[in-house]
């Protein structure tokens, strides 16, 4: 019962501001851009080659890699704003054992990240379902593809949100947390790949594509494990910092 109400409090924090609507608006815009690209885009030879096969369509409609970034920003903003607005004070007064308070906050944000992923993927699929027939192309992906794409987006969304939440807890400033999430998800991976080619299999984009069925290396199980590490390490670092730090 105690756990339920703490989780409910954290979830209520997330849905009682405009942030979810703002993210929904961004997701709608992204899926709209996808639809426009499908309708008006073409390959160099003037054909619709990029959506001709089932694999092409699956690749186009895989939103998981974007989800990691979107959910990362969601988690970073959701946690950092708590410090900016001092709403961590009532949170830690209600639950003074901070790791426990953070556990419920992280749980709520991870759930929200998964939802961001699911909604983003659902919108992308919807946009694809509307735009492909308009572009004169039949839909080739199967129900199992759809399930896999949704699952991949949910998993990467959860991992991204945990990562963002950890950065938000460490940085505390919303702008700084957003920059931190962007740096870790968009700047660090290519640098790591340049330093060692082996890293290419373990950056978030590749892992998301594996789960979506677009790439084959590493295995899906290894990809899930790696995404858990991407999310969990910053999240645990955030908990460790928050436990020791004074609230000022």
């Amino acid at each position, binding site marked *: *019962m105690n756990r339920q109400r703490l989780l409910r*409090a954290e979830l*209520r924090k997330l849905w009682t*501001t405009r942030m979810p609507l703002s993210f929904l608006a961004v997701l709608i815009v992204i899926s709209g851009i996808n639809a426009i690209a499908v309708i008006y885009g073409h390959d160099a030879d003037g054909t619709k080659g990029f959506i001709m096969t089932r694999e092409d369509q699956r690749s186009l409609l895989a939103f998981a890699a974007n989800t990691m970034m979107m959910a990362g920003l969601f988690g970073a903003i959701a946690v950092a704003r708590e410090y900016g607005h*001092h709403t961590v004070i009532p949170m830690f007064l*209600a*639950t003074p054992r901070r790791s426990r308070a953070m556990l419920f906050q992280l749980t709520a944000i991870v759930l929200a990240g998964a939802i961001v992923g699911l909604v983003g993927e659902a919108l992308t699929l919807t946009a694809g379902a509307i735009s492909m027939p308009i572009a004169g192309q039949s839909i080739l992906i199967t129900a199992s593809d759809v399930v896999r794409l949704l699952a991949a987006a949910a998993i990467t969304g959860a991992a991204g949100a945990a990562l963002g939440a950890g950065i938000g807890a460490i940085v505390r400033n919303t702008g700084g947390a957003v920059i931190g999430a962007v740096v870790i998800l968009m700047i660090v991976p290519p640098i790591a790949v340049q330093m060692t080619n082996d890293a290419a299999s373990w950056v978030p984009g590749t892992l998301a594509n594996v789960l979506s069925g677009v790439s084959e290396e590493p295995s899906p199980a290894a990809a899930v494990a790696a995404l858990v590490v991407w999310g969990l390490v910053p999240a645990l670092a955030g908990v460790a910092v928050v436990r020791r730090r*004074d*609230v000022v």
Partner: protein
Amino acid sequence: MHTLTIERLTKRYKKKTVVQDLSLEVHPGRVTGFLGPNGAGKSTTMKVLLGLASANEGRATIGGARYRDLSDPGRTVGAVLESNAFHPGRSARSHLLVLADGIGVPVARVDELMELVGLSDARDRNVGAYSLGMRQRLGLAGALLADPPVLVLDEPGNGLDPQGIRWLRDLLRARAKDGGTVFVSSHLMSEVEHLADEIVVIDRGRLVTAGAISDLERQGTLVRTPSPEQLGKIVEAAGGTVQVRPDGALTVRGLAIGEIGDHAHAAHIALHELSPQAGSLEDLFLEWTGGAAPVEAASPREEVPE
């Protein structure tokens, strides 16, 4: 019954000592005012008491236990520490619902509290559109949600209009009368004078004085003599403190009225007046804190670490 106890508390932010060797007690059934100029260490002391900041030395307990060790801290202590601890894009009612979920209070209590603090008509408005006074009322509603036996309030009167101040005063006095422990910080002397039964005064992180307001106000003795300098030195040598008033009379503290008379008599100094002095709390405060003028508008974040 919960007594708040601060024992030899020292808190440093990097090299800056914000609270130094501070000891005090706040008893149930009384409203205790916590006075000091801005930056004196009041907010930090309260944050240590509530487990939001850690002490470098000493300890702070509520009913003998650290805040984090209380069996149900959210229902035991109601606190207002920041006048602005709200998300501006969240409605007041949603803010209280979040708090109610966190401490396990039914939804009906939220509406009851909105009514009590006079915010029912604005309950669905975003807090960002609230005035400072409305935010203070909302903060107090949050503190009272679980009807806790202990209230710890940092500058709760900031931004309240005269009616709001009176409402707050009546509310806190009623809580204390019912056996609650009420610990209220303020830099507004007039506010505390009419609100608190006891006061604790700190300055630069150190305890200056503590006690019942009525006793503290009576502490001074007014002395008129043709030899103020000579008597002043004798009194100070005997352990008293002397303040020269603009009219040349002396205000002596730290010695009983009879002792002052005896010292004057022994030194063959004539006395034209020797009487207990009831000074205003504001005068006393200025004296206790080295003449530091109280700042009328408190900074919402009183002590920021270096």
